[in-house]
């Protein structure tokens, strides 16, 4: 098994404020890791550090062996291999759905216009949006937007996918569609790191669940270990709160 992502003693500070302190985390090829924890625990920051959207104060972040925490790394090349899905979709409103999906592969010269169109349509079909190819993003529902965002990332043929609270901004009835797409991806063997509040999804799909609080990993293990037999007190009280709700 190859290691896709490896974080070693990673620290992130904003001025005097430490948001991530000494995180060590390994994600193997094909593994699905769910990151859970209360707001402000640092889980989104850690996720965003994995593709260099956040700078690293200290530590190493190895992506397929390349330390992206170091300066002068060709970050664009690394990012091309990591798909990222945001809470607020961040579709490009000035382009059609197909335009969104084909922009990066054509701009980066990875595919011709025809290849990108074909691949983009295939990906949109795989997320159930074949009929929305020519629609503008503003005409789509939240769930549809997020599925376009996933298709946009997939068209780049990434080796791994990062999801930053992909369902938090959705109406409840839309959540299922998006999680369905993610479930399918996981089954196909995609390496995934998912920051989520969907405990059901984490329990069902994740190979490993990581609990964050106070900028540190408090507990990590299989869903069964984390959800059925939590050892950490903070994890216990966190689970109590979310499962009650």
């Amino acid at each position: 098994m190859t290691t896709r992502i490896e974080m070693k003693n990673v620290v992130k500070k904003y001025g005097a404020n430490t948001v991530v302190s000494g995180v060590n985390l390994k994600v193997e090829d094909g593994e699905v890791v769910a990151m859970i924890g209360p707001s402000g625990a640092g889980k989104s920051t850690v996720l965003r550090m994995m593709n260099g959207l956040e700078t690293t104060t200290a530590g190493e972040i190895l992506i397929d062996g390349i330390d992206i925490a170091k300066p002068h790394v060709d970050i664009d090349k690394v990012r091309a291999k990591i798909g990222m899905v945001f809470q607020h979709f961040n579709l490009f409103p000035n382009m059609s759905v197909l335009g969104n999906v084909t922009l990066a592969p054509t701009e980066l010269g990875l595919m011709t216009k025809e290849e990108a169109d074909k691949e983009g349509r295939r990906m949109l079909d795989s997320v159930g949006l074949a009929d929305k190819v020519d629609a503008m993003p503003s005409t789509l529902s939240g769930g549809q937007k997020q599925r376009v965002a996933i298709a946009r990332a997939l068209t780049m043929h990434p080796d791994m996918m990062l999801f930053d609270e992909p369902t938090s901004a959705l109406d409840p009835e839309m959540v299922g569609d998006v999680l369905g797409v993610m479930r399918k991806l996981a089954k196909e063997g995609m390496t995934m790191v998912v920051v989520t509040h969907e405990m059901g999804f984490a329990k069902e799909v994740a190979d490993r669940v990581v609990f964050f609080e106070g900028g540190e990993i408090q507990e990590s293990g299989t869903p069964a270990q984390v959800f059925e037999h939590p050892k950490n007190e903070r994890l216990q009280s966190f689970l109590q709160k979310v499962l009650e709700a």
Partner: protein
Amino acid sequence: MRRHWGIIGLVVALGLGIFSGQVASPERVQAAEKTYTIAMDTTFPPFEFADKNNKRVGIDIDLIRAIAKAEGFKVSLKATSFNGAVQELQANQVDGVMAGMSITPERKKVFAFSDPYYQSGVVMAVAKSGKVARLSQLRGKRVAVKTGTASADYANRIKHKYGFKTVTFDDSNNVYQDVLSGNSAACFEDKPVMQYAIATGLGLKLGKMKMAMANDYGIAVAKSNPVLVAKINAGLKKIRKSGEYTKIVEKYLGNGSQADTDKKAKETNDTSSSFFGLLQSNSQTLLAGLGETLQLTVVGIICATVVGILVGLLGVVPSKIAQGVATTFIYVFRGLPLMVLALFIYTGVPMVIGAKIPAFVAGIVTLTLNEGAYTAAFVKGGIGAVDGGQMEAARSLGLPWGKAMRRVIMPQGIRIMVPSFINQFIITLKDTSILSILGLMELTQTGKIIIARNMEGFKIWTMVALIYLIIITLLTWLSNWVQRRVRA
């Protein structure tokens, strides 16, 4: 980070290119032909003014042409304000000033003067129907004078004795209007000029005061140019001897009496003074002025937009240095009043770089820097107004900063900026009027010149205002059409 230096380098190179290219050209023109540029006042009849056909005529103009002909050199005449003409000579933008300029000891310290060519003196003029007629009645009142003239010196010298305040204008016409409107009780002016103005129908009369400060008019030349002084003096002698000198003076002032001046003035002035009569007789001149205004506007808008977009982009490049450059540019050129900037570039910079800058170029540079700063500010703001998630999403897909900016951020930012661009275009059109200070014959300056001849301030300014409004209306329609297309 390294690629951003490319963008910064491009902007800097472009900026230098604009400056060096524009500064170099006038030098070449100079070397090719032995022509002396003489700056004149625009509104100093009968020495220089535009006649009813809007040909620039006057005693000074005819004299310098006769002198040049006698001595075999060429002159290029440049109409600006008196004050502007003097500054341009100081800045070596022109070779001489001939503008009914009195020879004074102070001026002799700065410039070389030709032999005197006309004897004049300061007189007082008051409203025809007013009560004020003598100096002693001026206590506590305002007196209008033209900036930098011998009349102004005289007024300042006696103002404490007679207890009046002075108010200064750049144009004779504004001086007279201030008296006509009652804001000032009197004005001081050179005798032949005042006589001529009264002769054109101006509602003023000479006050009861002896001609003061009898003085001589001379042509001012840079002290470093004794050759030109010698040529002018030799030419002046020749035309005095041949009788051409007397002919020229009499052509404008007759035998010197007010009655004869009246007659001569009528010959040069507009035949009809109705609104439509004036519009008809001045339409060619106004259109020429409009043409210059439009030229300044279009070139100004293009340059300012290019510079504004580049500087605005510099302001969003993730580099502290680039952002610092952009912020400073915006701070400096948005902070400077347009007129100060125009004068600084036109009469200030040449003193330092030792090369002339043509008025049109100086005007365009002024517009480019000032309007460019405003444009940069809203370009920067417009890009900043695009949701930050857009850049993150584009970068996450592996797009480099430049590509993400061009394909994702800019198209969205431009939509936000469109109304600001339209607004800036309209402001640029209006701001060109300030460039009349450089003597550019654009619409506002054209208006000033026509009024200097016929004193029809209300009607002519109404025409000028209407022309501006029509053009701005057309520009607004065009902009709205573009806006609809962009937003669709």
